[in-house]
């Protein structure tokens, strides 16, 4: 039917489509449970949103529905060396979210009060204190809130490291293996790949990121997913001076300095086409992000930008992902559409998927992420974020 001759057949407990951080973490945890796993990824592991993002390991500023998951994922971040053999350059530098006007500062205060109920302690800082403790900040900053145990890590390492760990315990991870068809086959799923691989599985996990909507649609539950693209830049190495991961209210710029000294920053949208599988940064977006970065950290004046990049990510209209069981098909589990802020969550998403497959339920509250929220809504693109404190770009 698809024109691809089947050259290899596999029969497994779980088929995973999409080798980003969520899929690779799921493969590791499912395999550790003793299930047989085949993961299919159309490119290299972590080569889209999971690998090209900002690298923020951030709980602060998240939608309250995501906070319990982010709290749990932060615990996983703390034990990455035991779990996957590397800390992925995770630095718990603290995440400083900055206000550039009084309204933003008031919003930060409200958020801090509410976040405390989820156990996330945020430290409010007025103008004097934020500047005393961060002398590199620009004059336009009037205050901020600090999440002391947030930080940043190297996104290029995280997914390959999870993939390596999953392979080490026997998960079958297939790279450069695009899935062309997913369907129900009696009580099982059948997944066909362009390489001639056909996988028969009891459970199907959809961690296909920007392409997750295609799989959902194949099982009669289409969602209004959009292709989005981060717009990232990096400077030459500079002496270390930016001591925190930094974001702002509104999310139009975010930056961090890595151990080598390069300042990684971003803000705004690049260009991407998920059907062509192409993405690239935009010169205009880059110029604006640079201007805003200079406003936050004036010492970056004249620093050389050595590279910029983008990648492909799925964005949902309400800015939170789809996580949980399918509403149409038993044993189908979705986890996609992280809307630009799945990096910190990724490690725990694999654990949640494993709980769903293994026990039928997760210990984390997933109600807000149910795919059913889009039923009957033909075009939900204009549904506003449930939480006004939500940053626009939270990579």
């Amino acid at each position: 039917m698809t024109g691809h001759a089947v050259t290899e057949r596999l029969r497994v407990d779980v088929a995973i489509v999409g080798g980003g951080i969520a899929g690779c973490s799921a493969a590791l945890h499912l395999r550790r449970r003793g299930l047989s796993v085949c993961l299919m990824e159309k490119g290299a592991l972590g080569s889209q949103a999971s690998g090209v993002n900002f690298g923020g390991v951030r709980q602060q500023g998240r939608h309250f529905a995501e906070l319990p998951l982010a709290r749990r994922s932060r615990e996983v971040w703390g034990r990455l060396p035991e779990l996957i053999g590397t800390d992925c350059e995770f630095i718990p530098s603290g995440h400083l979210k900055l206000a550039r006007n009084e309204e933003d500062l008031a919003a930060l205060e409200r958020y801090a009060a509410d976040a405390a109920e989820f156990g996330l302690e945020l430290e409010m800082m007025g103008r004097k204190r934020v500047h005393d403790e961060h002398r590199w900040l620009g004059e336009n900053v009037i205050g901020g809130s600090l999440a002391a145990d947030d930080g940043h890590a190297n996104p290029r390492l995280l997914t390959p490291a999870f993939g390596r760990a999953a392979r080490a315990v026997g998960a079958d991870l297939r790279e450069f293996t695009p899935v062309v068809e997913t369907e129900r086959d009696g009580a099982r799923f059948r997944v066909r790949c362009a390489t001639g691989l056909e996988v028969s599985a009891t459970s199907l996990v959809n961690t296909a990121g920007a392409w997750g909507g295609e799989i959902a649609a194949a099982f009669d539950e289409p969602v209004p997913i959009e292709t989005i693209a981060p717009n990232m830049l990096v400077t030459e190495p500079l002496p270390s001076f930016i001591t925190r991961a930094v974001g702002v209210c509104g999310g139009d710029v975010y930056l961090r300095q890595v151990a080598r000294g390069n300042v990684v920053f971003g803000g705004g949208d690049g260009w991407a086409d998920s059907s062509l599988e192409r993405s690239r940064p935009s010169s205009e977006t880059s110029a604006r992000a640079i201007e805003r970065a200079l406003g936050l950290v004036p010492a970056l004046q004249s620093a050389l930008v050595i590279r910029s990049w983008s990648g492909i990510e799925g964005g949902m209209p309400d800015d939170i992902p789809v996580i949980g069981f399918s509403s149409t098909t038993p044993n189908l589990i979705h986890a996609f559409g992280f809307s630009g802020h799945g990096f910190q969550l990724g490690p725990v998403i694999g654990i949640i998927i494993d709980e769903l497959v293994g026990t039928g339920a997760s210990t984390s509250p997933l109600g807000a992420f149910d795919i059913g929220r889009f039923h009957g809504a033909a075009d939900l693109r204009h549904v506003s974020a449930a939480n006004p404190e939500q940053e626009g770009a939270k990579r």
Partner: protein
Amino acid sequence: MADPAIAIVGAGPAGIRAAEALSRHGLSAILVDEAPKGGGQIYRQPPDSFQGPASSRYGFEARKASALHLTIKRLATAIDYRPSTLAWNVCDGRLDTLCAGRGESVVFDILVIATGAMDRMLPLPGWTLPGVYALGGAQIALKYQGCAIGQNTVFLGTGPLLYLVAYQYAKAGAKIEAVLDVNPAHAKRRALFALASSPRTLAKGIYYRASLGTHGIAVEEGVTPMGIAGTDEVREVHYRRGSVDKSVRCDAVGLGFGLKSETQLADLVGCRFRFDGESRQWLPERNSDGESTVSGVYLAGDGAGIGGADAAELWGERVGLSIAARCGRRHDASRIAKIDRRLARLARFRAGLERAFPLPLLGSTLPDDTILCRCESIRVGQVKDAIRAFDVVEMNRMKAISRVGMGRCQGRMCGHAAAELLAAETRQDLAAVGRLRGQPPIKPLPMPWPGTP
């Protein structure tokens, strides 16, 4: 139909001849060039304050250089010539440029990429010591600044440029301690037949080589470089010839292993690349008209494969004529046929050069503590560890994991050696490990970026 907007990047032999051919057919172009004066690397013009006849600067090529300089001088008033301008990105029919801190987007329908070549470098122990220069850099110091790179210089590597630069230094009165060619004399003898397809060029090469002897300069062929020694600066070059370890004291080294095409713009605009087994590099594909796989994007000169200055002039004119024909201008078919015949002959000569001066196989022979990627200070051993730890088989994954090629040169300097190392470590062909994808800006750009207030 209105004439298309044509942009040319690079005012070397190819770019200037393309602009001239277009102009002859009543087509104007925007000619963007990084240098303050036209001529490219090979016919680089000195600053105004420098005097002296062209013959002392360009030797046998003085006539060609002067003719090209005259052409760009004449064209400057007829076309939109933009010197001292960096083209740092291209996308969707738009070239992002920077000139004296000011940014401008050049919109085009047709683009000619004539970005030329740079030195092909191979790392060896000590190659990042102060006092080590690329051969091209050593030549620029002489041509553009009238100075030598050291008091006692060693030239090391391979390729025609090795002998040309040594000859130019000797002629200028600089003291040369040794010329060390990694390729043996018999490689050149075997290539003689192909090289004889351009007898005048061959004769010049033989002359340069012979005149080093008359200046009393030691030329050793078939050497294996072991390293450049020194603490804060170059002190000595160690090498092996046969089974004998040798060294030569010096305070500067000119290092180079032929040339590589500057292909970043072709990459960003989306040209398809092929692996060229002869020169062992990835090159953008072009047809006989010089058009790439992207419609309306043409490639001229060394930027699409090393051919030398004469071929670059011909390719420039050829591309200009192709575009004129595309725009419905009358064109001279016999001129096109003549250019194509000459290009074919030069291609035979080029094949001979590749045989005479093949790029030495590096594989994974370098000691683990040798710096491979100098922008990011990454050593050979670290890269090997990364390859093993993550089962890396492809260049971009290697970059992501090891940071090689992530720095300010984006792998232009270390990319080839990194590919050789990966291929050797994973027992793959060089072509199979792929090539590094480029990202804008193709050269580092200071903050704020042009175009912002």
